[in-house]
């Protein structure tokens, strides 16, 4: 069930890194901001955190759009290294800004249902996990549909593969890139909002997730939504099984051993497409 947690985290990065090929090291901080939005939303409104999703998605969409169209787009022609610098800089900026604004204390979203469990047959299910799992399935499905079944999605893929040729197809590539980056950021925020009731929230929480997110996106095959989802589930299963038999720290080692093995056997990832 926790697979959904990792799945939902990675869907946004699949769009930004897998499809647009922008190595977004600030993705963890987008998630962190989503968590804080949910925290303050619940503190002020006392509503169910699920309702904060719309707010956090909107906030991060605007931030993502602004960041891509005003800053990232200026270096997008210079290859990956300047983009890495810029996104790492944003990541440091955001986590420090969060620390200045909200302090470095751990915050917990005050909700009632975190301890609720229900039973399906012999399996006991932890309610928040079930919500997250359902949501991440829904989001992954939505993104898959957007990318493969709508013209905007085709334009996004075309722009990622050959921006100049995409212009020749009548695509406004500046707009497409900014919108899809913003969408990826909004998805990170949704993940943050879903995770907020389960994890303590602090300014550098993003760095805890970012490495796993990149691993999942590459593992599933760059740009493949289904792959990111399966990859996320696989990693969470390895993590939770290993935490039963060994310690959780060793679980991470097992995850990366598995990652290396899969890359050796299938360099394009689990579901990656190749051109011969």
């Amino acid at each position, binding site marked *: 069930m926790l697979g959904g947690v990792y799945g939902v985290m990675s869907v946004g990065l699949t769009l930004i890194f897998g499809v647009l090929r922008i190595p977004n090291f600030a993705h963890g901080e987008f998630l962190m901001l989503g968590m804080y939005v949910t925290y303050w939303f619940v503190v002020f409104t006392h509503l169910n955190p699920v309702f904060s999703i719309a707010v956090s998605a909107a906030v991060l969409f605007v931030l993502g759009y602004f960041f891509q169209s005003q800053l990232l787009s200026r270096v997008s022609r210079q290859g990956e290294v300047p983009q890495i610098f810029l996104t790492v800089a944003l990541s440091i900026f955001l986590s420090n800004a969060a620390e200045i604004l909200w302090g470095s204390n751990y915050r917990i979203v005050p909700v009632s249902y975190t301890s609720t469990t229900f039973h399906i047959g012999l399996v006991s299910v932890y309610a928040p996990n079930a919500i997250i799992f359902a949501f991440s399935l829904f989001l992954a499905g939505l993104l898959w549909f957007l990318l493969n079944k709508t*013209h905007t999605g085709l334009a996004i893929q075309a722009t990622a593969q050959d921006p100049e040729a995409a212009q*020749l197809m009548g695509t406004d590539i500046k707009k497409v890139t900014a919108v899809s980056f913003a969408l990826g950021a909004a998805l990170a925020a949704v993940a943050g909002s879903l995770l907020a009731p389960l994890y303590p929230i602090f300014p550098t929480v993003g760095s805890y997730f970012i490495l796993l997110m990149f691993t999942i996106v590459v593992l599933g095959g760059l740009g493949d939504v289904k792959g990111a989802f399966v990859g996320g589930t696989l990693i969470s299963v390895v993590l939770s099984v290993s935490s039963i038999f060994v310690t959780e720290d060793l679980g991470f080692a097992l995850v990366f051993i598995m990652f290396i093995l899969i890359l050796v056997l299938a360099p394009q990832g689990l579901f990656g497409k190749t051109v011969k």
Partner: protein
Amino acid sequence: MLELESVDAYYGTLKVLDSITMKVDKGESVTILGPNGMGKTTLLRTIVGLMPARSGRIKYKGKDITQWPAHRRVREGISLVPEGRRVFPYLSVEKNLLVAAGTTSGGRREEDSLETVYSIFPDLKAKRKDLAGNLSGGQQQMLALGRSLIQSPSLLMLDEPSLGLAPIVVKSVYQAIRKIREGREELTLVVVEQNVRVALENASRGYVMQHGRVVAAGTSEELMNDSKLKERYLGV
């Protein structure tokens, strides 16, 4: 239809188009000749808007389009089949066409235009689920042509459609181009080509470029029979 008035273009500080003036009428088929590196590709890229014109004016259907971004020019009916084909390698053949059509599958109109492309290029229909990157060079050229055709352009520009293809494939590419022109008297064609004979056979007029300038212009017949010109600029 298309008018260029003393258009200049630069790569950094290097001048690659030097005061180009030319005029193409509706329904004409014009070729641009000249050795490699003389600015032919740059000229097409400037017309479609991938390269900015530093000075001069470009007019299309009476409108000044010099400052328009490329995607707007494409939507107004200027289409370029770029050098090296530039199909989207990780999209299927059909999705390559749908990106160009500006719509998704499902609608009646899209089905019609897909069928039109497939009727000219039956090979593409057989391969429509394949990734474009897995097609042969000739098939990719057909796909690139199909992608432009589905935009129903008024001005179709082809950059070296025979580059890197076997002679027999070149023949079928030009057959396809003739098929495209059938029943489309309004379609204006501008073709950049290094293969002088093939180019002049398929065009009514030609321009010869040298170092970013137009050094000669005339009907295909005039250019074909000008032995001095051919010796000096075209190397045949």
